[in-house]
Structure formats: structure tokens, C-alpha cells
């Protein structure tokens, strides 16, 4: 059971959380593979220097090389931490009253957008590409009553299920709520 008090700012007491989403794990994994490449570069360089430039493995060059390696490892650790934080803090919440999209653009850039269900006009699920098709993840676009505004859930798991859930929640809204949004149109 999620801690509903701390999920997002402005949450109502009687608001029921229906779904809490993060981007699909493959999104994190692809970034992790890119991170791994940097680790492989270092290990590869270490091996290549030992084989082709053994002079760099002797004093006094060895001390410089060891210092560089240690600093490189520190930045690798920082890189992995940031990749994970960006993934962990990117979150989408669907409640029985609205959808909330919390996007962590960078460490100091956080966007919280919310949309009341009554303002939804159209919901589209998009699965595009080989990996998304096999692993069932993709984008969910929510078109709002406003002319150009479009909500996007980026690379979330089971987009079709999410699309259906949002439409079902819209259908469950009281008639006067739906009527209000129709009048606004």
C-alpha cells in the first residue's frame, strides 16, 4: 500500500490512488548499458596499456595512471547514482480524480503536471519498435480539452492497460463532471 500522504503535492484526503507508474525497467537498463560501456572502456584501456604500452605501467607513470583510474571510478559511481535517481524520481500517478505526471528532467529540474479526469478528451497508447513490442512498453498520450495541451506518459509498462484504466475512470465520473467538461468544449 503506497504512502498516499507523500505521493504528490495537493492530494485530496478522499482521493483513491489507482496506479503508480514508473518508466519501464528497460529504460533504466539501456542507460545502464551505456554506463557499462564507460566501465569497459577503462578496463579495456587498462588491458591495452599493459599489453602494448607496458612502460606506462612502470614508475613514475603508474602513479598518474592509478590516480586517473580512481578519479574515473568516482565519476562512474556518480554517473550510476544520477541515472538511477532520474529513473526513480520519474513517476506517474493515476487517481480516481486526476492523473499526475512528475518528471525529473535533471537533478534540479522537476516538473509536476496534473490533469483532472473530466478534462480528458482522448487517450492514445503507442507501442513502437522491437523492444517495446516484445516487452510491452510504450507511450500513453492524453489529449486534454485545451487546444494544444497533451499529456505524455513516457515509455511506461503496459500502455494499453493504462489507456483502458484512464478511460474506465473517466466513465466512472459523475455525469455532472462530464457535462461540465462538455460545456467547456
Amino acid at each position, binding site marked *: 500500500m503506497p504512502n498516499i500522504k507523500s505521493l504528490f503535492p495537493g492530494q485530496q484526503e478522499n482521493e483513491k490512488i489507482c496506479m503508480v507508474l514508473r518508466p519501464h525497467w528497460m529504460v533504466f537498463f539501456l542507460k545502464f548499458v551505456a554506463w557499462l560501456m564507460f566501465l569497459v572502456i577503462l578496463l579495456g584501456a587498462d588491458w591495452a596499456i599493459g599489453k602494448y604500452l607496458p612502460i606506462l605501467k612502470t614508475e*613514475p607513470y603508474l*602513479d598518474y595512471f592509478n590516480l586517473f583510474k*580512481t578519479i574515473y571510478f568516482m*565519476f562512474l*559511481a*556518480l554517473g550510476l*547514482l544520477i541515472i538511477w535517481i532520474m529513473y526513480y524520481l520519474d513517476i506517474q500517478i493515476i487517481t480516481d480524480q486526476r492523473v499526475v505526471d512528475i518528471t*525529473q528532467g535533471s*537533478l534540479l529540474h522537476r516538473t509536476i503536471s496534473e490533469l483532472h479526469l473530466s478534462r480528458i478528451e482522448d487517450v492514445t497508447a503507442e507501442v513502437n519498435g522491437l523492444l517495446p513490442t516484445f516487452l510491452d512498453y510504450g507511450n500513453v498520450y492524453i489529449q486534454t480539452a485545451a487546444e494544444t495541451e497533451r499529456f505524455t506518459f513516457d515509455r511506461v509498462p503496459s500502455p494499453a492497460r493504462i489507456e483502458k484504466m484512464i478511460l474506465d475512470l473517466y466513465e466512472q465520473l459523475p455525469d455532472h463532471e462530464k457535462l461540465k467538461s462538455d460545456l467547456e468544449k
Partner: protein
Amino acid sequence: MNPVYQPNSIGHSILAVIFYLVMAGFMLYSMLALYALLKYGRNTILCIIVAIFYLILTASLYSAAVFNLNLIKF
């Protein structure tokens, strides 16, 4: 315990200044990352565990880096 760093030449001093500037940048960015994690993370216990693990790891690497810096002779 690493010995206190004592630059004994201008080359050593320049290297030490560059090293500690890089470390300051690293520390600043690390603190920003941990601040964002602890402020916005939903699962406090998980965030604290990750932060402690990261601090232990980087403290060890920093210690190794200072040791390697001290080994450099001009």
C-alpha cells in the same frame, strides 16, 4: 590513515590544486544528487540506504585517490 598531503614542488602544488578542484566539483554534484534523492524519494528507507552505500563507496575511492596523489613524485 593517509598522510597529510605536503606539496614539495610547484608541479606538485599545481597537481594538488587541480585534483582538489575536481574533487570539489565531484562533491558538489554528489551532494545535489543525494539532496534530490532524499527530498523527493518516496521510500525514505531505500533512499537512505542508497545514500549511505554511495557515501561509503565514494569515501573509499576518495581515500584511494588521495593516496595515489601522494605517491606521485616530481
